[in-house]
């Protein structure tokens, strides 16, 4: 059959280009994942500050009203909540960039489908006055495949130029934003979590001491302290998990930057295994964090 080699060439051209852009799409998906992991950190600092204030208030002399304590904690920690809005901008910028890469890597798959359907439809309707089709289906199919391959190559070339330029132009900007996210997570947010953790563990230690009942007769009066330990331990466990996530974030962000640099360096190498390995490793690290979160 004379048409098979042509169809094979067209399929090869289309398939080869799609594979080349796949690491860009994978990278975009992974970066989006990282932005998702970071998102709770922005609001978390204000929440952790409030939690610390509430624990401190429990140990203060004078009357105690839980609702009033909560309001006072919110007021005191309000500036940190507002700072969280700034911190959230970093994650949003990363998510937007990731979404743009996914879009630009995948857009070529659908850009021409409509055109080709239009072409097939228009040509298929052409007929002589006596109703004989001008194109037989075999010729039309072969011509369409060639058209698809050639037109897709033109568009993919444009998309690849845009993608390569986008990656190259924004390497430094990405580094700046991701490093800001790392500093926020690993230094500022982690510091707040530690402050809160230290107050809570001190209170738990005192609860344990207060729970001691030297005699059976004293057990009843110690029950409130004994029950309170459970809630304190749960708060401490959640705090420690969040601190682990913040620390793991710094490592995965490093992997993301390395993968981005590798994408640029190996953009022309079809099937560059190294960049795929890097991105895969990164995704695995993010997954590990999510597994931690799921264990809560």
């Amino acid at each position: 059959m004379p048409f098979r080699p042509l169809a094979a060439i067209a399929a090869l051209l289309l398939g080869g280009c799609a594979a080349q852009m796949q690491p860009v799409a994978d990278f975009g998906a992974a970066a989006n994942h990282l932005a998702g992991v970071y998102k709770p950190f922005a609001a978390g600092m204000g929440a952790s500050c409030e939690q610390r204030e509430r624990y401190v208030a429990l140990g203060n002399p004078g009357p105690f009203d839980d609702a009033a304590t909560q309001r006072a904690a919110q007021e005191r920690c309000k500036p940190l909540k507002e700072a969280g809005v700034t911190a959230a901008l970093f994650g949003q910028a990363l998510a937007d960039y990731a979404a743009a890469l996914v879009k630009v890597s995948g857009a070529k798959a659908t850009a021409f489908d409509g055109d080709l359907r239009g072409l097939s439809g228009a040509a298929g309707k052409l007929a002589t006055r006596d109703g004989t089709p001008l194109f037989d289906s075999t010729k039309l199919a072969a011509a369409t495949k060639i058209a698809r391959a050639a037109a897709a190559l033109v568009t993919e070339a444009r998309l690849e130029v845009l993608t390569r330029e986008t990656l190259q132009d924004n390497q430094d900007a990405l580094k700046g934003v991701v490093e800001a996210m790392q500093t926020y997570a690993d230094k500022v947010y982690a510091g707040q979590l530690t402050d809160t953790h230290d107050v809570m563990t001190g209170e738990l230690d005192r609860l344990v001491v207060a729970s001691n009942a030297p005699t059976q007769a004293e057990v009843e009066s110690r029950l409130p302290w004994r029950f309170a330990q459970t809630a304190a331990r749960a708060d401490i466990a959640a705090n420690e998990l969040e601190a682990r996530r913040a620390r793991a974030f710094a490592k995965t962000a490093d992997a993301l930057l390395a993968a981005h640099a590798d994408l640029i360096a190996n953009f022309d190498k079809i099937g560059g295994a190294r960049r795929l390995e890097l991105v895969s490793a990164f995704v695995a690290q993010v997954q590990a964090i999510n597994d931690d979160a799921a264990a809560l």
Partner: protein
Amino acid sequence: MPTTPTAADIAAAADATTAAPSASDTVDALADLADLAGHTSTLLFDYRRNNPTASDIAQALNLEQTLDQRAIDLRVQAVKLLGANAADALAQLKDASQKVDDFLTDEKKIEGRLVLASAVVGLAGAALVGDAGGILAAVVAVHAALPDAKV
């Protein structure tokens, strides 16, 4: 023989070192100062809780609350500085995302023209696989594609 530090002793050093930072302080330094203020505040809290009859309890509470506020202020300042330092990078990433969106929108706009281009390439394909009559028919196909291109 070492004496037990009072609330004032615990706070004095931290109070001095967590004074308002200069403009040249880095984010890391601000974060470290915040950690110091927060840690000292926690020490004072524990001092109060573990020594409820100490004579300087009121002073401890006062210093603790001062350091609490200072830790909050320093962390807020650290985040603000982070935002200022990364402002250009944030703007550039946003611009890059917009550029991709604009490009893809333009691609959609020229879709009609691509229909025509595809038809022309189809003509060449017909020439390869067909006979003279097929080429003539493909020319007609190009004309037929024109109205589609204007949609």
